[in-house]
């Protein structure tokens, strides 16, 4: 065999072995291992991020801990362990479908496209794409971005919304990818990029924790709708039911208001800043009528 054909044989064998994992029974997996694995983010403030002790905290993490309580009750395993696994916008779906986490408590937009890969619990937060810029950049609207450099976090719906807008308006924006929100914000902070498109709540969170928050402006209007959902594996109706019921129970009991107040209307770690973001009417409606509907391919709830 020649050297070349040996390489290709190795490659073929590799492909044959790497068959994607089949649908799993998550509850059974949790029962067998005694561990619930939760995916979290490092800088999705205040939904899922690391505090000054490097522990994952946030609105989404709190909701997930209630889901863990529901799983404990369902499996009658009060001593169930929780393991936190850091994920990024780019790794969250492969890590979830690969089985390394059971639920993702981050800031993931529920989209109809992602629903082909994963399932979502009822929406627990409503936001949309805006951009953050330095005040000194003089950017006042999206159209000011013509020919400028914009940084995006790879694998986000905001990336798509901004690229679609740039294509549509022929802005010729120079895009640079980055791996997470903290790094994207750093690019704006150091002047490598003039703007960073992201869900507005996260932009306010990043701004609040910046060295000088008054240096930055968040500019709208919304380029997309982004309803957040807790992600789990697809085709696992038993597990989805436990998770959905846990979330809906929080909504029915009104406990969600307390959790919301704690993260959006009170001082939060690490710097003790209060975001002062009262609950939007959109979220209030979703708490009354829980729904796991995602955004359409155009980035809006209705195209």
């Amino acid at each position, binding site marked *: 065999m020649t050297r070349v054909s040996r390489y290709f044989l190795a*490659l073929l064998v590799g492909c044959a072995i790497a068959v994607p994992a089949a649908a799993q029974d998550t509850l059974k997996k949790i029962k067998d291992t005694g561990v619930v694995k939760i995916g979290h983010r490092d800088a999705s403030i205040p939904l899922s991020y690391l505090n000054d002790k490097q522990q994952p905290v946030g609105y989404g993490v709190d909701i997930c801990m209630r889901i863990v309580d529901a799983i404990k009750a369902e499996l009658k395993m009060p001593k169930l362990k929780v393991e936190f696994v850091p994920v990024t916008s780019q790794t969250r779906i492969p890590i979830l479908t690969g089985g390394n986490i059971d639920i993702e408590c981050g800031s993931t937009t529920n989209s109809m496209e992602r629903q082909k890969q994963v399932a979502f619990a009822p929406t627990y937060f409503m936001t949309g794409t805006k951009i953050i810029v330095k005040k000194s950049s003089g950017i006042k609207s999206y159209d000011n971005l013509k020919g400028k450099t914009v940084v995006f976090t790879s694998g986000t719906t905001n990336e798509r919304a901004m690229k679609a807008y740039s294509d549509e308006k022929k802005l010729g924006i120079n895009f*640079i990818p980055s791996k997470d929100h903290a790094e994207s914000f750093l690019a704006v902070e150091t002047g490598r990029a003039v703007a960073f498109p992201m869900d507005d709540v996260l932009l306010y969170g990043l701004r609040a924790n910046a060295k000088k928050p008054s240096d930055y402006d968040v500019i709208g209007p919304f380029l997309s709708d982004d309803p957040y959902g807790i992600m789990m594996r697809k085709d696992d109706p038993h597990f989805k039911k436990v998770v959905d019921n846990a979330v809906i129970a929080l909504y029915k009991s009104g406990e969600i208001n307390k959790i919301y107040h704690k993260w959006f209307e009170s001082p939060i770690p690490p710097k003790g800043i209060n975001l002062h973001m009262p609950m939007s009417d959109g979220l209030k409606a979703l708490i009354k009528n829980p729904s796991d509907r995602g955004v359409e391919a155009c980035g809006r709830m209705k195209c």
Partner: protein
Amino acid sequence: MDFSVFFQPAFSGGGIYLDWVFSGIKWTLAVSIFAWIIAFSVGSALGMLRTTPLMILRAPAAAYVELFRNVPLLVQMFVWYFVLPEILPRAAGDWLKTQMPMPEVSNAILCLGFYTASRVAEQVRSGIQSIPRGQTDAALAMGLTLPQAYRHVLLPMAYRIVIPPLTSEFLTIFKNSSVALTIGVLELTAQARQISEYTYRTFEVFTVATVVYVLITLTVTVVMQRVEQKLRVPGYIGSAGK
């Protein structure tokens, strides 16, 4: 496996996803080849300096090698891209960040080039030092100056000796170029990740990326084997074990 994904219209910028693959290949080749030019020239100079009898030349070259080969490549990439512009004077830093042509690509080339130079330097040094000391002495005794002894006696032999390890470095640079994705260069691996993010066809996309990397490195291997054969000095090296 469904490779038709590459012929689907791409999400942004017109064209199909295959165009993204080609664009990735273009940047992988550009970053690697320009970085290799830096690595080979700087590395050769440093390798020679490390073998001279003059302490004042040996010491800084040794310091360079130890610094650049002992810091992880990823860390170096971040230092070039994120740290350097902040510690330079304001104007220079701003130039690096915005005015410099293609800041991400240029940074990646410089970083990869200077990192690999430290490794090339060690290969060149080992090549020179593998030549018996008597050859240097003989050259100097014949009246050649030290630079002439390097040019006409030591280097022609040393480079021939180190072609195999240098080939490895050259292959490594293509693979290491994927680290450039961490500072935003859309090279082959970055494009593969991007396509799989948009299409969810991870296996197909990375299969193609793997095949492309293998094709690139196989081509380099074959070319370097030819070079080795062409330059072989009969009866001196390259025949043991055959």
